[in-house]
């Protein structure tokens, strides 16, 4: 068996040898041209006059295009038709592309792009959440989920608290920046290699830009150097720019953003503000909660609506909320248009309720894990049907059992006591510990996206060519899906040739997103392989006069009654007998439906669960801090590949910690991003991982739904386990005072934020001395 085994990433050997090709590594035709955008230097306003002559005259420049020079639709948006490739004269954010330089080298294009002389009429810019609320600039009107009567329930509750949490955004910092390469074809057709999670959308946008039907545009991507949601829509501009320039010049055209440009131009995780009111009883049981979420969407729609929806859909996390109101404001600002990022709004929703739980525990002076315990959804075998704030019954919860187990294996209680003792003896350094769970809904909330296709060929030598609509960004999707194909034919993993995602092979694909890659594509591939295997069985049944049950595909062999053949022999025989050895496969997730405006339905096929305990130490003089230990127990159903799943969990946790600690996006008063390179934007480095890092898969894991081999999605959920580190920091800060002041820590908890929170502890809740 190949499935359920820890097979190494299919490209591992090529990665370590530098042989794995990314888009910028592909051999490009002689005379390939290189592109760069000229960018807006203001956050809001109009272009009054623009002199591009210095750009055109710069060394190596072939042509310079503006919005007026485009052959088709000037739009690279996902849905709202509100993102021009090149500005139409109005400027919505600092860094917005205005013109396109086509030059004979990457460096020449970059140099020329800085030479334009542009006169602007600057307008007041709406830069942050406060300004957007004040001006009431929105992407769409507010949306509300309502369950029960939250106002009455809060007002009649024995205890009530309210508060506010500010949550910063996050830069994806995929190591491979955005890149595309367009190759003009005969008859005006276009082939584009793009580092994208969504080849079909790239195909659509290129076709619109060139006024071509979809069949004239083909997109290919073998792998990305990281995506994390940042390549779901943000590659559109480069691919369209390349296609337009290739149409104009007749040459191959390549574009890659320099890192600083990448960080300035492309969208990030949504910054959020969450206001809460909660009523609870003496044990910390939540009776009712009222959340108001404010999402800073940036200047255009992009994916902000479903992102904000998912934040609402995760406002309960793993807790049953008898009465709830969740109101969501989608704010438009003159900043980069925020986009998908691992978790897709879910993490912001989850940290909101985790803050509430932590605050309740403070109010009652009890261990927050006790508050969690009385609020967790009942386990799946429980009779009571508890529902989410969007009226979906939770029938698969295992969070109680998982939390109970991790509390034991991580020795949570004993360590909490030991930490209190340690803190007594240490006047300057303080330790903190916290446990946090995650329950994450799996499926695209736009229901029709939950479909996938595959294409599988068996060649006459018995080798297998595998293709599907999912994309590989490092998450190991191709490896998992190839394991499924190998098992279908009883072949070793290496017999399966994994091939680049290609809109010419599998059409009309959904983005590889929402953690759904292996759920959808694994099933589609399985369907294709099952069809092929059934054809072979039918052929062998007739040929050898055996019953189907007597035919087995295993260990690279085919057992037909008492005879044994190699798979190659069977393939050759089938070919000779004119059996079709190629098949498509298709899958659509069953049993889901969702009305986003009414806030009702079953948007998710199932939930994935996880729980983490993190211990930190902070320095009360500087706010410096470090993770000493993290213990994670995570549910991946029955794992398709334990090594890849653990890799997703480890990496997701560290990325989540980065979001909530060192990764701070800073804009200046003019709306310019000041943290636009790794010198100023700090993702976790090697030594930032926990000293002790224990990760375990939930061994009893088995998806109750009929997913591929009963596995569960793993891409996004572990990111939210990083919230335990944020809560542990809060716990340590609380130890710096007399325990009467709630730290009310905001994210990211930089050393600075931590030190200020410590000062509030020491000043009875007031800011700084």
């Amino acid at each position, binding site marked *: 068996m190949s499935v359920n085994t820890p097979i190494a990433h299919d490209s591992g050997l090529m990665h370590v040898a530098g042989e794995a090709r990314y888009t910028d590594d592909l051999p490009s035709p002689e005379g390939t041209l290189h592109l760069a955008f000229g960018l807006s230097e203001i956050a809001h306003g109009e272009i009054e006059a623009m002199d591009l002559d210095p750009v055109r005259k710069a060394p190596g420049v072939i042509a310079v295009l503006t919005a007026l020079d485009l052959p088709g639709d000037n739009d690279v948006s996902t849905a709202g038709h509100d993102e021009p490739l090149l500005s139409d004269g109005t400027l919505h954010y600092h860094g917005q592309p205005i013109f396109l330089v086509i030059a004979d080298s990457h460096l020449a294009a970059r140099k020329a792009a800085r030479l334009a002389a542009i006169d602007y009429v600057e307008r007041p810019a709406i830069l942050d959440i406060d300004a957007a609320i004040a001006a009431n600039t929105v992407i769409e009107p507010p949306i509300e989920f309502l369950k029960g009567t939250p106002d009455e329930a809060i007002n009649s509750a024995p205890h009530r608290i309210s508060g506010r949490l500010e949550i910063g955004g996050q830069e994806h910092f995929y190591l491979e920046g955005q890149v595309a390469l367009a190759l003009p074809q005969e008859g005006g057709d276009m082939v584009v290699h793009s580092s994208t999670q969504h080849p079909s959308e790239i195909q659509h946008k290129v076709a619109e830009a060139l006024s071509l039907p979809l069949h004239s545009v083909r997109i290919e991507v073998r792998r990305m150097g990281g995506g994390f949601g940042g390549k779901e829509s943000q590659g559109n501009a480069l691919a369209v720019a390349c296609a337009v320039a290739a149409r104009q010049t007749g040459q191959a055209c390549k574009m890659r953003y320099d890192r600083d440009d990448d960080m300035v131009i492309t969208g990030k995780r949504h910054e959020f503000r969450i206001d809460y009111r909660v009523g609870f009883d003496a044990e910390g049981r939540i009776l009712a909660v009222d959340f108001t979420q404010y999402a800073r969407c940036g200047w255009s729609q992009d994916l902000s609506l479903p992102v904000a929806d998912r934040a609402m859909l995760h406002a309960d996390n793993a807790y049953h909320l008898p009465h709830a109101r969740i109101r969501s404001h989608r704010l438009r600002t003159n900043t980069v248009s925020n986009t998908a990022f691992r978790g897709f709004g879910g993490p912001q929703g989850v940290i909101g309720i985790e803050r509430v739980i932590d605050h309740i525990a403070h109010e009652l002076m009890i261990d927050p894990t006790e508050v969690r315990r009385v609020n967790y959804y009942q386990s799946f075998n429980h009779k009571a049907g508890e529902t989410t704030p969007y009226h979906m019954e939770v029938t698969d919860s295992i969070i109680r059992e998982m939390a109970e187990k991790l509390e034991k294996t991580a020795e949570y209680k004993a360590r909490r006591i030991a930490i209190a003792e340690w803190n007594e003896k240490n006047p300057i350094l303080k330790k903190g510990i916290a446990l946090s769970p995650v329950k994450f809904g799996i499926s695209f909330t736009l229901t029709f996206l939950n479909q996938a296709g595959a294409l599988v060929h068996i060649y006459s030598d018995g080798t297998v060519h595998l293709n599907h609509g999912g994309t590989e960004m490092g998450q190991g999707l191709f490896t998992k899906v190839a394991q499924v194909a190998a098992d279908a034919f009883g072949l070793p993993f290496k017999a399966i040739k994994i091939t680049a995602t290609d809109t010419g092979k599998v059409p009309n694909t959904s983005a590889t997103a929402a953690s759904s890659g292996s759920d959808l594509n694994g099933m589609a591939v399985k369907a294709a392989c099952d069809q092929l295997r059934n054809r072979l069985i039918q052929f062998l049944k007739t040929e050898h006069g055996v019953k189907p049950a007597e035919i087995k595909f295993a260990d690279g062999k085919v057992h037909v009654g008492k005879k044994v053949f190699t798979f190659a022999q069977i393939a050759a025989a089938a070919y000779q007998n004119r059996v079709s050895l190629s098949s498509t496969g298709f899958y659509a997730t069953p049993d889901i439906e969702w009305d986003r405006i009414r806030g009702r339905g079953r948007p998710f096929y199932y939930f994935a669960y996880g729980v983490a305990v993190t211990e930190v130490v902070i320095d009360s003089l500087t706010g410096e801090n470090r993770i000493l230990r993290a213990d994670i127990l995570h549910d991946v159903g029955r794992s398709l590949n334990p090594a890849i799943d653990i890799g997703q969990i480890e990496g997701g946790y560290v990325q989540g910690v980065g979001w909530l600690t060192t990764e701070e996006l800073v804009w200046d008063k003019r709306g310019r991003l000041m943290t636009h390179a790794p010198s100023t934007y700090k993702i976790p480095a090697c030594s930032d991982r926990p000293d*002790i890092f224990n990760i375990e898969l939930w061994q009893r894991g088995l998806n109750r739904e009929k997913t591929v081999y009963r596995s569960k999605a793993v891409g996004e959920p572990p990111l939210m386990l990083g919230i335990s580190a944020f809560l542990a920091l809060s716990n340590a800060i609380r130890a710096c005072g007399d325990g009467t002041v709630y730290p009310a820590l905001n994210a990211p908890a930089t050393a600075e934020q931590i030190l200020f929170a410590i000062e509030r502890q020491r000043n009875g809740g007031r800011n700084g001395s």
Partner: protein
Amino acid sequence: MDIEFLLNGETVRIASQPATRTLLDWLRETRKLTGTKEGCNEGDCGACTVMVTSLLEDKLQHQALNACILFLPQLHGKSVRTVEGLKGPKGELHPVQTAMVEHHGSQCGFCTPGFVMSMATAHQNGFRNHDDMLAGNLCRCTGYAPIIRAADAAAKIPTPDWLTDELDQLQAMQPAKGQDIGGAYMPQTIAELANWYADNPDATLVGGATDVGLWVTKKLASLQKICLLGQIAEMRRIIVSETAIRIGASVNLNELQEVMAEHHPDFAEMIRRYGSNQVRGAATIGGNIANGSPIGDGPPALIALGATLHLRRGAERRDLLLEDFFVDYGKQDIQPGEFVEAVSVPRQTDTLKCYKISKRFDQDISAVCGCFNIVVTDQVVKSVRIAFGGMAATPKRALLVEKALLGQPWTDATIRSAIGEFSKDFQPIDDMRASAAYRLMVARNLLTRYFAETQLGQNYTRVLEVDA
């Protein structure tokens, strides 16, 4: 004259390239060796890491360096190994490559060649402190744990023999020496440099190019005339006498760390967190001083140690206290054609503590860098030098704080009264690294920390010293 170096064991000669062409662009665009990746083009992510081997007094020195901020002439006479040149002659994997696959150390794989080259260099040098060796390689997928497991596993396997034969090749290579190597002036002695630079004061002096490199890759500057200092052996010397430690301007930060580990270990600990291994292997102390950055970590420590700067222009030499060199933001006390030859630190009993405060521990530029050198005898402050980076337009002494401490009893009360002086010494600014309020609060608290360390020890003050 042509630039000449070994590329994966083969001699290459380069004639017609701009002197500021980076090794990375040349590898990828000209040689089509695309295994080495561009992640940031500023030396902060390590995706472009290559192994550079040079001959130092008949010994091989292997360094992991960032190809994105190495100019081609800097490689003259050296050997460059990229990821494509790491496998054995029969395609055998290097132990670090095998371990990375076995321990699932790659996910998207884009950072992997850089990691592999850092790991292979550490493997070659026998370095086992992998957190330090890999601090300059960013990975966004794995969370690093499997990479460290791979590095630990590979450390148990001997170095493959196919990587050890460069000594003969480098000795056999007789690279041209002269006025113009690949468009750069490359003097061999300080006297040559002094004479040439006096006549060519408009030239840009390049030590390790960790700063100048960014002028080219980020500011897109066209530098018409550059002078590389790397071949001047005298400028790379560290001379420890009875009275002073004299550090040549071209001494790199890794070399400085080594000597400071003996004399001022906390300075060495701060240098461990200065840039990354790749940056420290290229960056020079002379460059760190001469570029006058208000946030360089070298100057505050050196000022706290009472360092003297040795400047030279033609045959003229002059010395000045390092703190007097920094006049204002971007303005140093240096004349056209004058350059930093060395810096001297007086020998002294070690009482120096260096505190580098940044958002991230490793490979981050300081928000505040406070260096305290306080001698206490019989519970009284006998001498005090306190210098800060990140608190003013230049690296600067906290003179009023010093005054409030000098001659006072070494007590909590003295500290409490002295910290009030910080706001008179410094009026820091808000920027993307920290707010002015945080900077000032931290500066005050760092004096408290210094005091606490003399009373309790570092176990009570430093989160890096706490065991899990």
